[in-house]
């Protein structure tokens, strides 16, 4: 007597159900994609309307830009991710930041031989503003930071290091770990640091302090003053601007990207 393999039948049925389920699943995704496409069109219209009323506000008002960026971040949207994105195309935010990126790269390159690829946000801000001329839009430090964050993806070693109340911007692919960062922060107050200071404030052994300082020297980010009274001082040219501001010389400008 034949006994239908309950197993076989069941499996067959199950397979059929699965196939149907899969089919429905595919249809569901198709539906949703269509829905997304429609919603996207609607959103584009909303954004166009917003742009027609407030595009100027974004261009002219740095505080409003910050609000805008923060809101985007909160909901999980990156308006600067692509020049082809709606935000960029309709609000013009893209061009603003991408051009700023170019200016930042050029300034950092022009000054690299002097400061080893480390520059304070203030100095960068000053130099960028100078380069933009009197009639360009206002650019805030927040704008610079956002542009720099986008530049990281180019692999050139762009980084942002918090020191004191401000930031140092790194623009070379040098390895800077926590130890280096801490020393930079220590040096921020006076523009230089000594081994004794490191020992007393950070409680490090001399060897560790020396290693970190030597790395900074090698990278050109620190200069050694052996003629200082007492012990040698390690100066950070990136922090010099408080002492004297310098213009980019024509030679330096030439070394920057043509």
């Amino acid at each position: 007597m034949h006994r239908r393999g309950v197993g076989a039948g069941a499996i067959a049925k199950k397979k059929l159900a699965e196939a149907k389920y899969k089919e429905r699943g595919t249809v569901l995704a198709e539906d949703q994609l269509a829905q997304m496409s429609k919603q996207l069109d609607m959103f584009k219209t909303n954004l166009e309307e917003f742009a027609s009323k407030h595009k100027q506000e974004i261009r002219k008002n740095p505080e409003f830009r910050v609000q805008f960026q923060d809101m985007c971040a909160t909901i999980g949207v990156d308006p600067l991710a692509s020049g082809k994105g709606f935000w960029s195309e309709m609000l013009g935010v893209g061009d603003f930041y991408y051009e700023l990126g170019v200016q930042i790269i050029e300034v950092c390159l022009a000054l690299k031989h002097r400061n080893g690829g480390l520059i304070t946000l203030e100095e960068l801000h000053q130099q960028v503003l100078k380069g933009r001329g009197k009639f360009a839009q206002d650019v805030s430090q927040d704008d610079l930071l956002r542009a720099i964050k986008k530049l990281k993806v180019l692999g050139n070693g762009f980084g942002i290091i918090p020191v004191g109340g401000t930031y140092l911007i790194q623009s070379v692919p040098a390895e800077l770990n926590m130890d280096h960062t801490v020393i930079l922060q220590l040096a921020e107050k006076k523009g230089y640091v000594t081994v004794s200071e490191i020992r007393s404030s950070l409680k490090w052994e001399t060897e560790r302090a020396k290693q970190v300082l030597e790395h900074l020297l090698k990278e050109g980010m620190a200069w050694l003053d052996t003629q200082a009274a007492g012990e040698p001082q390690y100066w950070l040219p990136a922090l010099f601007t408080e002492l004297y501001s310098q213009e980019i010389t024509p030679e330096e400008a030439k070394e920057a990207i043509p």
Partner: protein
Amino acid sequence: MDRFAWTSGLLELGETLVVQQRGVRLYDGEEKVKFDSGVLLLSTHRLIWRDQKNHECCIAIPLSQVVFIEEQAAGIGKSAKIVVHLHPASSNKEPGPFQSSKYSYIKLSFKEHGQIEFYRRLSEEITQRRWENMPTSQTIQVNKDSQAGRIRAVGIVGIERKLEEKRKETDKNISEAFEDLSKLMEKAKEMVELSKSIANKIKEKQGDITEDETIRFKSYLLSMGIANPVTRETYGSGTHYHMQLAKQLAGILQTPLEERGGIMSLTEVYCLVNRARGLELLSPEDLVNACKMLESLKLPLRLRIFDSGVMVIELQSHNEEEMVASALETVSEKGSLTADEFAKLVGMSVLLAKERLLLAEKMGHLCRDDSVEGLRFYPNLFLTQS
């Protein structure tokens, strides 16, 4: 003098101060009146006279009442004057110091001079008739309340008022902008949720989603600026946009690459391309995503990532390993070189010079001398002279 009305002396919105002069005496026609020592102010809309001793005593006349003006030269013991001929007072004129007058003109006597400038300015204002373009909310204010007597220069109060109005206007614009922005973000948030839901479906049924659908989805994400929830990687890679971009880049970069020895860092490329475009610039991510597709599209350029993380674009025909051989020659000739020195000699950027030397070292051709004076490379004699 019956055309004058009492006023607080505060400038209206849209009214600007043009010139003012101290030491002015008023005449009703030929007769002196008690207003013998005051500051005369000319605005775009009115002539205002304020008593120097009693600041609350302030009268004004709209410029629209002026028919024409004449100069009267100074004489012995007589100050220079300006004669102002006026239209009859309008019936709805605010109360003033004089109910009636037998004259249809007044005189402004400049005891402390200043009449030349004043005359010039007054002529200008009467000719330009700027009060017609800038209607004020009230033409003349009545201020009988002496408690309002705050001693302030009319000009400054007017300016402050205007700044305040402007601030309020700006605030209104900003708050409207924020409101609109919030509403917009709500809608954007819905898009993000929807995309997450779709991504989940895709994840569950890997292989059942067509290639086409995936590409469509990615391009939607690209438009919105949403990261790809499935792969978490840079969304947008693999969209038609990036494919097109890659092909464009291959065209744009051919010559610059040849001019630079076949290799350029990605930051250089970014600057070059965007400077050339001027508008509709590429984002850094756009560039990277496009470059990632170069090889698969069989284009004559490729993206290369060094150990240090530095990213470059090379011509396919470029062979960095071969360049290493010539680098070794150069270093040998000079005995030793730092990246800076090598860069200057060869005419490369320091960044790429360093990468080449590091590669040479990796391949065993060069040795490093790492000291506080910098990183210096020597030919690897251990290898060649063992």
